[in-house]
């Protein structure tokens, strides 16, 4: 009989399924994990400290760089915290735009999660399918903010600008990759306004989710890799600080959009899916249903936004800049503009915690101001950080290959865990 010894295995930080830069020290008994010790911080950029040295407005684009697959949701938590400290009202149209983009972001995030989770545990094709839909959503991001990833679109007091009336069109390439007919077909749904394009997407999208489900939901290999893996009871899920789909997968019907509604979530109609067994498969089902529900919310927002034009940012010029025309013609507005972009806004002394239902869980910003033009302390409560800390407990007794399935189910992005 061979002598069996415990092994210590170094996993990552260059492992393809480490989702960036995770180093994990695994203590193994044969192939069974005895202890998992994640070493994080390889992407630590001290965002919180940087924010203490920037004005409130300058600190905002850092939010995109936290969880870089759900950019606008991060921004949302930050602007909400600032607004609560300032005590300002956001125009209703801006609230609807925010809710719509939060849900677009949720689909973006879940599509990347699905693609990467599939790729990690052997379903290669998913990645290609999900990136097809992500492309359209990225175009929406680009059309509204000018950037495909780091949007910096939300502002304290509203959003940077109203939705554009047209979508950018594809042009024929010099390389002759597509002929004129193909280019015309690609531009087919881009001739209307941005809302038309989004509506077209929401009509197409449920069929796409059906496609993904055809590939995975009853797939024998998929179920073998996910059913019964990483089971968490509701009590443990709460004690470990799991939030979002990780908590709902265990059967706790907790969603900030329903329980502590912010913006206009109490005016839109949607359901909260919950799991039963608390394993990777249930969390997969929860996220799939969340995509359908997000699609439903987007539809309602599009319908409302079509009917209700109006301002998209507050007219308090101590917080939001005046219009370009106003600035050129009016002395007072010129001064406001100058003060806002040099010294920045002053936020009254106080502290506030604002949380949003981020695609990954509860994303919160704890903001402390001492009355200066810069935050005194900003703490980012990243859902991934808590999820990662649960790795040790969840991985114990599983095989090495299941650690990869667990990382997929955590929906890990190191931008937010390391901050």
């Amino acid at each position, binding site marked *: 009989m061979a002598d069996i010894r415990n092994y210590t295995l170094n996993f990552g930080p260059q492992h393809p399924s480490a989702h960036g830069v995770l180093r994990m020290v695994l203590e193994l008994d044969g192939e069974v994990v005895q202890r998992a010790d994640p070493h994080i911080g390889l992407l630590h950029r001290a965002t919180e400290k940087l924010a203490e040295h920037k004005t409130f407005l*300058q600190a905002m684009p850092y939010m995109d760089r936290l969880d870089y697959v759900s950019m606008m949701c991060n921004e949302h938590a930050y602007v909400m915290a600032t607004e*609560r400290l300032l005590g300002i009202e956001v125009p209703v149209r801006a609230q609807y735009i925010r809710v719509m983009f939060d849900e677009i972001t949720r689909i973006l995030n879940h599509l990347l999660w699905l693609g990467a989770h599939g790729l990690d545990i052997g379903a290669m094709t998913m990645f290609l399918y999900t990136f097809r839909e992500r492309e359209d959503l990225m175009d929406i991001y680009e059309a509204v903010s000018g950037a495909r990833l780091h949007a910096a679109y939300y502002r304290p007091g509203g959003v940077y600008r109203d939705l554009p009336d047209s979508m950018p069109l594809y042009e024929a390439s010099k390389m002759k990759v597509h002929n004129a007919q193909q280019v015309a077909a690609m531009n087919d749904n881009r001739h209307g306004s941005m809302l038309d394009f989004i509506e077209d997407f929401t009509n197409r999208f449920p069929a796409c989710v059906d496609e993904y489900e055809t590939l995975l939901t009853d797939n024998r290999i998929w179920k073998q890799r996910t059913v019964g893996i990483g089971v968490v009871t509701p009590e443990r899920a709460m*004690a*470990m*600080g799991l939030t979002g789909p990780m908590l709902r997968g265990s059967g706790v019907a907790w969603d900030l959009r329903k329980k502590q509604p912010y913006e206009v979530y109490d005016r839109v109609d949607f359901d909260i899916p919950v799991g039963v067994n608390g394993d990777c498969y249930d969390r997969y089902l929860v996220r799939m249903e969340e995509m359908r529900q997000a699609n439903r919310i987007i539809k309602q927002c599009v319908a409302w936004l079509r009917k209700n034009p109006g301002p998209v940012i507050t007219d308090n010029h101590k917080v939001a800049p005046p219009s370009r025309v106003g600035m050129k013609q009016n002395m007072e507005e010129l001064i406001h503009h100058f003060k806002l972009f040099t010294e920045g806004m*002053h936020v009254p002394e106080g502290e*506030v915690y604002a949380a949003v239902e981020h695609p990954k869980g509860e994303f919160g910003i704890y903001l402390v101001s001492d009355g200066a033009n810069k935050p005194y302390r900003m703490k980012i*409560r990243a859902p991934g*950080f808590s999820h*990662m800390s649960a790795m040790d407990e969840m991985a114990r007794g599983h095989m090495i290959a299941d650690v990869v399935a667990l990382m997929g189910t955590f929906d890990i992005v190191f931008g937010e865990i390391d901050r």
Partner: protein
Amino acid sequence: MKLENLKQNLQSLLGEKLVRISEHAGQLTAEIRPGNWLEAARILHDAPALRFEQLTDLCGMDLSAYGDGRWKGARFCVVTHLLSVSNNQRVRLKVFPADDDFPMVDSVSGIWSGANWFEREAFDLYGVIFNGHPDLRRILSDYGFIGHPFRKDFPLSGNVEMRYDPEQRRVIYQPVTVEPRELTPRIVREEGYGG
């Protein structure tokens, strides 16, 4: 109304362990005596009227530069955010470790296991010691890092930088060569400034 209820419950259940309780922007902040931190945490977790099952966040804070020196109390603060899923309520707790040179509070990772990493982070970034923590190691900063980077007296550009040294043929640390600069100065304006 709900907030008022929670406030009364906290006052009656925590009693002497509470220093003060305040409300701002619709959120409650309770300051707990450092010596009673662990007992208070247990009550917050167990009492049916409170039932804070989840520790949302725990972080350190360095108040030494607050309001440009207006702050007179203890230098460090540990801020905890709790969430009760069953009662749908939140509370923020503050503990001020008494000794500024050796800040120490009890660890609550035995009550909420999710606190484990948050406490490691507060230790790493602020140097707050959590008494009774099972594994108090640095978490975000580099292996062998010196100092606590989020303290207000730690420079933004750090103290050391890393480069490849062709002579020694290895990566070395050297004092930073970055000039610290501040583009927008930090200003606290008086009350009612600019109308």
